[in-house]
């Protein structure tokens, strides 16, 4: 029997003995209250939820959000400049005009023809909203976890009040109450564990209920990252074609610079694709990391090293690319 269980048994025993010692009838209010109180302390105990892994998970989600905003911008920027170039080539400036929205919407205007880069913007906005919701979910998990969560209370004070009440009760009945402090202060531990146990239950239920949705979020994010990578490939081909089309009409200096420009385009494209590859892999680790929250007692247990390595790789690639340019 654990010391805690022994303490609980002892508390109950003491309560019953107090009632017996007083010869109070079962129906008397005092007996009912005393039993009710002692039995209230007899609750399941369990490990508390550590907030460190939840905070680490939240930090990873926030870092992923920032990384995705930067990485996905590459495709958007290329689609934007191609749209401008193509409209300019055919003198189609009407396609660049913003129009008012009807019925009256003073704070909105829209571009005719819904260019591709606007669709990309819209999808990125949706991904941002998904991240925001994910972070709100993480905040809820943080509320439930850790010693400073919502379920804190001064258990020692409660235990002190119990002892005072019991002593007062014993004194009023003129009996000796030979109860060691430890028994009553043991209540503090029982009550604290009771609340922590409740938190663990609530926390695990949330993790389990959310797991399919988190997996779906990760899958969606990976789909968008993959679509962005293919979009980048398409934009590369369009840029390459535009740069090499009708080479004979280029000036001598532009023609001389063309191979270097093409190589720079290649380098930039390969760098951006590699970043998107890391981002895709990082999103892939999200579901298993989330599932491990149910059992992790430290950030180390989450197995964040994998996702952290991808995020470090993204940062390294940006640094290298900036240095090379």
């Amino acid at each position: 029997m654990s010391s805690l269980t022994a303490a609980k048994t002892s508390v109950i025993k003491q309560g019953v003995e107090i009632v017996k010692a007083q010869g109070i009838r079962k129906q008397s209010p005092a007996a009912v209250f005393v039993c009710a109180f002692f039995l209230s302390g007899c609750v399941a105990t369990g490990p508390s939820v550590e907030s460190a892994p939840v905070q680490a998970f939240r930090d990873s989600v926030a870092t992923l959000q920032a990384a995705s905003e930067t990485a996905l911008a590459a495709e958007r920027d290329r689609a934007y400049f191609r749209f401008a170039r193509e409209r300019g080539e055919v003198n189609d400036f009407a396609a660049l005009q913003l129009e008012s929205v009807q019925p009256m919407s003073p704070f909105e205007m829209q571009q005719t023809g819904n260019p591709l880069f606007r669709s990309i913007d819209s999808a990125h906005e949706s991904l941002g909203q998904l991240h925001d919701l994910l972070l709100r979910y993480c905040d809820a998990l943080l509320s439930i976890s850790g010693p400073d969560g919502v379920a804190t209370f001064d258990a020692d004070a409660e235990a002190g009040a119990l002892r005072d009440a019991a002593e007062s009760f014993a004194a009023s009945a003129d009996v000796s109450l030979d109860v060691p402090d430890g028994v009553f202060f043991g209540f503090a531990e029982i009550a604290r564990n009771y609340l922590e146990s409740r938190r663990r239950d609530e926390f695990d239920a949330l993790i389990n209920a959310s797991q399919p949705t988190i997996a779906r979020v990760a899958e969606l994010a990976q789909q968008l990252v993959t679509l962005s990578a293919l979009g980048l490939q398409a934009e590369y081909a369009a840029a390459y074609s535009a740069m090499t089309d009708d080479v004979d009409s280029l000036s001598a200096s532009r023609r001389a610079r063309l191979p270097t420009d093409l190589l720079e385009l290649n380098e930039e494209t390969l760098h951006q694709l590699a970043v998107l590859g890391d981002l895709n892999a990082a999103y892939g680790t999200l579901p298993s990391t989330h599932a491990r929250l149910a059992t992790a007692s430290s950030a180390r247990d989450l197995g964040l090293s994998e996702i952290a390595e991808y995020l470090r790789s993204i940062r390294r690639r940006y640094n290298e690319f900036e240095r090379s340019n």
Partner: protein
Amino acid sequence: MAISAFDKKLEILSFVIFLHGKLIRLALVLEQMGEDSARVREREAKALQTIDAMRAAMLTTWSGNAKSVMRDLRAINADAQRRVRELENTIDRVGKLTSVLERIDKAIALVRNLL
């Protein structure tokens, strides 16, 4: 895991992008040989139009799918907030224990009055 319709579209898009790249290369090779590449360039432009249309459609589908998952996430967050509120009620339950103590005091006072 079964490949979703979206993943199939990604594969098709990938193939059209590959084809587009090959058309660009063919046009360049023809031009280097002094041949007319107009018909290839025409198909290259059509391939790019197809790619753009596919990307736009897939981005719209993706946003639609994201919105359905957003609904799920909102439901999860509502559930989470409910659980947090329940835990706050747990504090109330602890408060109730305190009130039990107070009632014990009152009961003791009643018993004392009987003595």
